[in-house]
Structure formats: C-alpha cells, structure tokens
C-alpha cells in the first residue's frame, strides 16, 4: 500500500509537464483569479458558481448541497470550528444520525419489547450516552497518565466483545435491545473515534472540535474522509491566498466530478438501456438459478460493472473532497486515475485513498513497527497482509454488523467466506506487488512499461470483483468460484 502522489506533474529531470489541453481549466493557477476570489465580488461569484454546480448536480441526482455550507464555513475565520460543528450536527440530524432505525425496530419486535419502549426517545438517549462516552474517552486519551497505548486495538476489541455479548442468552429481551441500540449508534462513528484517539496525544484542540469532524458535514462513509482533526489542521488554509487557491481547486474538482457523473449516467443508459446488458448481480443470480446468460454477456456485464464502479467511486469521493476544499481544507483526492496504476498496490491506493489510508494508519504501520523487525521483506509483507486482509475484513464485518443481529454471529461470520477469500487474494497479491515494486527501466518502452501493466492490474481487479460483489452473505465462495469458472470457460 502506498500513498500515491497526486500533486506533482514532474518528469525525472524536474521539468514540469504541461498538458496541451484541459477540459477543466487550471483556475487555481491563475494569479488574477486567485486574487479576484478574495474580493467581495469574487466571493459572490464563487458562491454563485457553487449554487449553479449544486443545481446541476441536483438535476442528475447527486447531492452537493453541503457546498453552500462549506463556503460559509470558509469565510467565518474565527468561528469556522463552531460553524463546522453546527453544519455537521445539522446534516447528521437530517440523516437521523446514521442510525439504522429499521434494524433496531426489528430487534425490539423480535425480543418482544417493542410495546415497552419509545424508539425515538431511546435513540436520543443513546446518542447522548455515546457522545458523552466518546468525549470522555477522548479527554482521557489526551492525558499521558490515562492514555491507552493501543487505542484502535482496544476499541475494536471492546466493540467486538459487545457484539459477541448480544448473542449470549443472558442478554435476551431488553438488555439485548439496549446493547444493539448502543452498538448501532456508535458504529457509524467508530473509525472517527479511532482517528480521534490516535490524534489525542498530538492535538491540543478541545474535545468538541475533535467531535465536530466525526462524520463532518462535507460527507463521509464509515471511512473518515479527512481522517481526524490533526490531519485536517495540516490541510487547512492559513492565509486568504491559500483559501482562494483551495476553493478554486474545490470548484475545479466539482466541475470535473460533474462531467464524470454525467458520463456515468450516459454509460449506464448505453449499456443497460440501449444494449440491454444485465447488471452484474443479475448475471450472477441467473447463473446460480441454473439459467446462465451467454459467456460474452457475463464478461461484458463484469467489465461494465468494473467501469461503473470506478466512475461511481470517483463521483462519490469527488463531491466530498470538493466540498471539503470549499470549506478551506485542501484534502487530497479520494480516487485519482486508477486505470493508470501499473501495480496492484498502486491501484488500491488510487481507487479509494481514504479507505486505504485507514487500513495503513490503523493496521499497516502498527504491525510494521512491531512485528518481524529483523526480517525486512517478511516485515513488509506481514504488515500489508494485516492491513489488506485482516483490517479489510474487520472493517466490512463491522460495517455490516446488522447481519449478526439478523443471521446470528456464526452465520454472519461464515457468510464472510467469499469476502475473506477476496481479501486474502487481494492482500497476498498487493503484498507481493509491494515487495517487487521498483522503478521500471525506461528502455522497456511504453507498451511493456505502461500499457501491459495497466491492463494486467485492471483485469486483476475486475476479476476478483466476482468474489466481492454483491457483498452479501447469501452467496458462497464455491458458488462465486463456479461462476468465475463459467466465465473463464472452465465449466459450462
């Protein structure tokens, strides 16, 4: 795994590479625009541009509404932190603080206590409890005397122990409902807390500021885009000039994301509308039902799924990062030219940067500094394996923790088999790719140095999607392997 650079466009000799034509102009490099955006009329123009982009995004079903809040946050200087907190609370309130309400209602009915509890009241109380607990833990971690030495490991162990406790017979009834309520309220913020705890020893910011970026208003999945407050502070614009450049970068990225979002829609229309190609999931289901579609159709749907997934990830991350930039945080992009990756490690890095960073920060580095310190290559491979396989698996298990409540712990764990295989293959391949990574000799030519490695990397990730999508607990590893064999022509 590596944090591939996004910032430089230099050749080996140091000369800047200037593309002759760009679809989105480099507005952040125009000194007149940078100066203009700092004036009142410039700010107004920027705001209007953001509103226009929001409307265009809305027309194609993408929510960019937080961008207006972001611009407001950027201009309030001293009160920026307070406004970030307000904006975050507002948007979290709008999305029900990301609590899976229907799951909790089902648990209450299954435990026969639905008539004895008031669900919204329980959610509100649990939210207060969770926030107070998080604040307390962050405060304790800030003190050297009370700090936990392995915060992420401790956090995960506690969370998983509570999940296991939900399965105990002694917790049947109301205790189980309360336990699930606590778990489902804290789960969306778990990795934010992990970053918060890691930051606590190096950041002197008050606890409320650290909490304000738990699912910040610019957007996130369970993966924190922008990590914790300490990371964000390093990317925060410190001068009006930096703010202007950062915001123009935000506008530029939003415009590019809009282009890609439209491209994704057009591709979907062409492939699934005009050409009537089935979705990959349907293709798999048809095969499992004993009515396989022609092999060529299977390949076409797998490739189209891969391309649509890349576009979807780019749009999803682009909207979030553009919004953060408009708020004054010059974050690196989440997805950056994944098809240009020449190694497996590089692809993973370019495809979902903040998720890869999460695994690197919480699994790779901690393993690397502690295990196999005397064996250079084994040390690297094992750390990569712990991140790409163990960390990856744990992340998804926690993300889909509702399966434990719905299927029971054992079936939920067994249901991970296909994804476990996916992460094992991924980790082993990335680990080997990582160890082999070395500068390619220039004499190999463009075809062997660039095109063939890029094609191999894309083909690899396209193929292992069979074991990863759809990521449910229904289809076994064997069924997916059979489908792949069919695609490869090994079986009929």
């Amino acid at each position, binding site marked *: 795994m590596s944090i591939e*650079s996004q910032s*430089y466009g230099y050749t080996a000799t140091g000369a800047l590479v200037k593309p002759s034509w760009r679809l989105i102009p480099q507005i952040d490099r125009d000194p007149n625009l940078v100066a203009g955006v700092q004036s009142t009329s410039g700010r107004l123009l920027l705001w209007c541009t953001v509103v226009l982009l929001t409307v265009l995004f809305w027309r194609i079903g993408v929510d960019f509404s937080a961008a207006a809040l972001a611009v407001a946050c950027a201009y309030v200087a001293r009160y920026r932190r307070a406004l970030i907190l307000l904006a975050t609370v507002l948007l979290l309130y709008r999305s029900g603080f990301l609590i899976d309400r229907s799951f909790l209602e089902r648990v209450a009915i299954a435990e026969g206590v639905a008539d004895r509890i008031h669900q919204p009241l329980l959610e509100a109380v649990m939210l207060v409890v969770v926030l107070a607990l998080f604040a307390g833990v962050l405060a304790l971690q800030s003190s050297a005397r009370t700090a936990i030495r392995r915060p992420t490991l401790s956090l995960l162990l506690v969370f998983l122990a509570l999940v296991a406790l939900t399965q105990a017979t002694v917790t049947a009834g109301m205790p189980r409902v309360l336990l699930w309520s606590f778990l489902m309220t804290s789960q969306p913020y778990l990795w934010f807390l992990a970053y918060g705890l890691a930051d606590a020893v190096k950041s002197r910011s008050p606890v409320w500021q650290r909490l304000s970026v738990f699912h910040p208003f610019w957007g996130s999945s369970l993966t924190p885009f922008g990590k914790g407050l300490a990371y964000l502070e390093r990317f925060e614009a410190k001068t009006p000039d930096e703010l202007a450049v950062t915001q123009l970068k935000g506008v530029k990225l939003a415009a590019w994301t809009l282009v890609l979002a439209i491209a994704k829609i057009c591709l979907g229309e062409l492939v699934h509308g005009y050409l009537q190609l089935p979705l990959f999931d349907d293709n798999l289901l048809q095969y499992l039902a004993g009515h396989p579609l022609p092999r060529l159709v299977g390949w076409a749907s797998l490739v189209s799924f891969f391309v649509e997934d890349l576009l979807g990830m780019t749009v999803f991350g682009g909207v979030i990062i553009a919004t953060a930039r408009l708020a004054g945080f010059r974050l690196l992009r989440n997805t950056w030219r994944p098809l240009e990756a020449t190694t497996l490690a590089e692809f993973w890095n370019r495809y979902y940067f903040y998720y890869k960073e999460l695994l690197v920060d919480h699994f790779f*580095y901690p393993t690397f500094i502690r295990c196999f310190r005397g064996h250079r290559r084994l040390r690297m491979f094992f750390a990569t394996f712990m991140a790409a396989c163990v960390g990856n698996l744990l992340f998804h298990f926690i993300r889909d923790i509702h399966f434990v409540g719905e299927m029971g712990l054992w079936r939920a764990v067994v249901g991970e088999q296909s994804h476990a295989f996916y992460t094992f293959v991924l980790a082993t391949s990335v680990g080997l790719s990582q160890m082999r990574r070395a500068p390619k000799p220039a004499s190999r030519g463009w075809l062997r140095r660039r095109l063939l490695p890029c094609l191999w990397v894309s083909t690899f990730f396209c193929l292992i999607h069979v074991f990863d999508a759809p990521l449910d607990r229904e289809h076994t590893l064997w069924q997916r392997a059979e489908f792949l064999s069919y695609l490869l022509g090994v079986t009929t």
Partner: protein
Amino acid sequence: MTATPRPEIRSQMRRYVEQRLLMKGDGAPLHDDDLLFTSGRLDSLDAVELVMSIETDYGINFADIGFDLTRLDSISAIVALAGQPSAGTA
C-alpha cells in the same frame, strides 16, 4: 555508537529523501520544511523505507516511541527525530 551530529543527519536525510523523490519522477526543489507525506510527494512505502533506514542508522525503535507520520513529514522533522537524545545509543 556515538550520536551523529545534526548537520550530518540533515545532509544524509536530504540525500535519501531527494533520491526517493527522484525515483518517483519528482525533481521539484525540496526545502527543509516542505511536507513530504501529507503533501502526497512521498507515500507509505517510502515511510516504511525511511523508518527502516532510521532504525538501522540511528538506533531508534519506533515500537518504543510510537509511530507518528508527522514526525517524518519534513527534513526538519526527521532530523529532530533522528537527533533526539535516545537516538544513536543503540
């Protein structure tokens, strides 16, 4: 092993970082306070190579001091880390 003087650490680390940047095709000027990792110029693989180099050359055990990428994020930060009192005693 005796502690390495700071100017020497600085020049050693500068050479090392510049070499890694050049391997990535980044020949842009490098100042002592330029951000290396959070700017995206170096990646996590460079970080672990740097860790191994510092462990070997300056006797620092990251398992003891805790890993914090910000302590490797510029030439100045690396020099401060490698030149700290506990270093060079291994």
